[in-house]
C-alpha cells in the first residue's frame, strides 16, 4: 500500500510516526465514525463509477457522438480521484483523532460537488441540443 501512502499530499513534509502509534488510544466511537465516513466515500466512488459505466453502456446515444463518453469519463475520473485519496484521508483523520487535534481540512466535498454539478450541466446541454436538433 506504499503507493497509496505516497499520494498523501503532505507526506514528505516531515518524518512521521505511523498513524496508529501517535497520541493516545482514542474513544473507539471516533475511530468507527471515521471508518464509516471512509466507507461512505467509497460508496460515493462506487456510485459514480456505476453511473459512468451506465451512461456509456445503457443510455441511448446523443446526437453529439462523444457526449456519453465525456460524461462517463468525467464520472469515472472523479470516482478514481475519490478512491485513490480515500485511504490517506482516513489516515490523516485517524492521526488527528489520536492527537486530539482539529480534523484536517479537505477540499474533496467541494471538488465532488463541483464535479457532479459540471456533469449534470453537461448532460442538460446534451439533452437540450438533442431536443433542439429534433425539432429543427
Amino acid at each position, binding site marked *: 500500500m506504499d503507493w497509496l501512502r505516497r499520494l498523501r499530499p503532505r507526506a514528505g513534509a516531515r518524518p512521521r510516526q505511523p498513524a496508529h502509534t501517535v497520541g493516545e488510544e482514542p474513544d473507539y466511537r471516533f475511530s*468507527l465514525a471515521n*471508518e464509516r465516513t471512509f466507507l461512505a466515500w467509497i*460508496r460515493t*466512488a462506487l*456510485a459514480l*463509477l456505476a453511473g*459512468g459505466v451506465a451512461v456509456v453502456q445503457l443510455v441511448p446515444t446523443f446526437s453529439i457522438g462523444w457526449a456519453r463518453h465525456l460524461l462517463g469519463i468525467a464520472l*469515472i475520473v472523479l470516482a478514481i480521484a475519490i478512491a485513490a485519496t*480515500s485511504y490517506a484521508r482516513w489516515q490523516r483523520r485517524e492521526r488527528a483523532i489520536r492527537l486530539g487535534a482539529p480534523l484536517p481540512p479537505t477540499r474533496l466535498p467541494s471538488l465532488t460537488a463541483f464535479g457532479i454539478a459540471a456533469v449534470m450541466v453537461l448532460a442538460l446541454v446534451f439533452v437540450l441540443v438533442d431536443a433542439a436538433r429534433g425539432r429543427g
Partner: protein
Amino acid sequence: MTSRAGGPPPHPTEQLDPGVQSERTQLAWQRTGLGFAAIGALFLRLAFRGHLALAVPGLLTLLAAALLTARAEHRYRATFAAVRQGHSPADHCAVATTAALTAALGLTALIVILVL
C-alpha cells in the same frame, strides 16, 4: 459472547453504547459490500452482452463483495474484542484494501468505457 466451547461464538448482542456505533459500522460495511456487488453485476451484464472478457472483473468484484459483507460480521466481533481490551478498533489493512480495490475497479471501468 463468553461460551467458546464448540462452534463459533454467538453474535454479540450486548449494546456497547447508546449510539450503537458498532452496529452502524457493521451496516456501513454491508452497504459497501452491496455497492461492490452492484458493480460486479453491471460488469457481468456487459459480459453476457458479448464482452466476455468482462466476466473476470465481474466475478472478482462479486467475490470482493462477498468478502466485504462477510467482513462486516467479523469486524463487529473484532470491535467488541478491541473495545473490551481498551484498544482502538482501527483496521488499517481493511481500509487500505478497500480503497485499493475501489481504485482498481475505477481503472477497470475507465478501460471498459474507453475500449468497448
